């Protein structure tokens, strides 16, 4: 077991309207701690000293819920590729390091407090089409709908997205294209997603734009930052589907007609 002395510079902001500033905290951490456990140690010290602990979002701490995003030394989720902040361990740092911690920044992700941002814009994108409609009633026969293995795997690759927002945080344009494309692609590659395929991509892209995310400039920073390694191939697929849907959708379908 080896301990390390670190200096943290953390963004503190008391409320959405407050101005916010960086504050410096020394911390002694163990190399086997996760990054969030290290922050827990800082917070215990702050609480003992009667100060406000650093607010940060977390839930599963096992890399699947997507809530723990923050910028660590300029990188969404920190220095390790394909790793969420909660799965990052202090052995990725060394004794004496200075660590800069900032919230994800995007107009569509307003800061609630310190490192916690409001990502409900992602929820609204999902509500705009990230689902399939199924008939209620008796359960369908297993394997009644055949899905080729290779397609299932590609759909699963897209479905890996945990909606953490690292793509938006890393993108110089604060674009949500990788997130939206992962959700669009995941369903577009499965037979169950076909009936609503066109309406889905039109609705989700419209919502994405109206939330105030920037457009895609193909920097590919999102792919590099994604803890689930979602490929920008999904963005190309969404662009293709969006173009097709825009040209083929009959106008004012409103009530959910699907054109072919």
């Amino acid at each position, binding site marked *: 077991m080896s301990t390390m002395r670190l200096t943290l510079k953390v963004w503190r902001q008391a409320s959405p309207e407050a101005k916010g500033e*960086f504050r410096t905290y020394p911390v002694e951490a163990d190399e086997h701690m996760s990054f969030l456990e290290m922050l827990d140690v800082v917070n215990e010290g702050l609480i003992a000293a009667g100060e406000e602990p650093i607010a940060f979002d977390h839930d599963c701490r096992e890399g699947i819920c997507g809530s723990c995003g923050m*910028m660590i*030394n*300029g*990188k969404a989720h920190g220095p390790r590729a394909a790793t969420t902040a909660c799965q990052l361990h202090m052995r990725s740092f060394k004794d004496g390091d200075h660590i*800069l911690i*900032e919230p994800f*920044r*995007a*107009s*569509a992700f307003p800061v609630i407090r310190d490192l916690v941002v409001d990502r409900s814009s992602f929820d609204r994108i999902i509500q705009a089409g990230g689902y399939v409609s199924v008939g209620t009633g008796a359960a369908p026969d297993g394997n009644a709908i055949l899905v080729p293995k290779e397609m299932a795997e590609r759909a699963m690759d897209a479905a890996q997205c945990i909606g953490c927002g690292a793509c938006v945080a*890393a993108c*110089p*344009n*604060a*674009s949500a294209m990788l997130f939206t494309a992962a959700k669009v692609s995941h369903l577009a590659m499965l037979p169950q997603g076909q009936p609503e395929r066109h309406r889905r991509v039109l609705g989700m*892209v*419209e919502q*994405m*734009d109206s939330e*105030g*995310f*920037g*457009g*895609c*400039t*193909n*920097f*590919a*920073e999102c*792919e*590099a930052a994604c803890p689930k390694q979602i490929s*920008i*191939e999904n*963005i*190309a*697929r*969404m*662009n*293709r*589907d*969006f*173009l097709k849907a*825009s*040209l083929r*959708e009959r*106008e004012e379908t409103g009530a959910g007609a699907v054109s072919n």
Partner: protein
Amino acid sequence: MNAIIGLWRSTIGKKIAMSLTGLLLVGFLISHMISNVLVFVDGASLDLYGAWLRGFGPLLWIPRLILLGAVVIHIAAAYQLSALARAGRGGSYRDHDRPASTYASRTMRWGGVLILVFIIFHILHYTVGIIHPDFRVGEVGRNLVRGMESKPVALFYLVSMIALGAHFLHGIWSVFQTLGINHPTWNRWRRGIAIGLTVLVAGGFASIPAAALLGWLR
């Protein structure tokens, strides 16, 4: 028509407009570059090419207006997307690492502005002739060589062509993504195509001011 308006209203649609107008301009620049390097054969062959073009008379305005329209659409989309991106980012980071983006991709906006300034200068220089030391209608080859005699002008041409090359490099790769041309079997060709076209077009153009600066153009 509704579909076109709907597309333009979206960020993806604006990018599609940029990619299609960009491709049109790439096509024009390939043919323009090939005709320009005729100057290395001799001035007379450029004059012949110029005479052939002018032979179309007023019809020449059709491609001109199409190109102008493409430039206007391309810039309008670039301007709107840049504004949306700036608004989308909101505050800036104290530290923001950008390991994946390239120099070319990060200079698309200001590089594009430089290209626009270049296009205006270039038209006044060699088409209209009002910022040319000794412009003579129809003597294309001679005008080209005389116009490059000024070192600052040749240098400006050279720098602009480097900016054009950077814009090409990211732009052509970007077109594949924007138009949804992405397949694991073919993806390794995308960079190669972008590099090849960049070297061909920007290199072909740049060879002329470079030759002028070295005193090889006459």
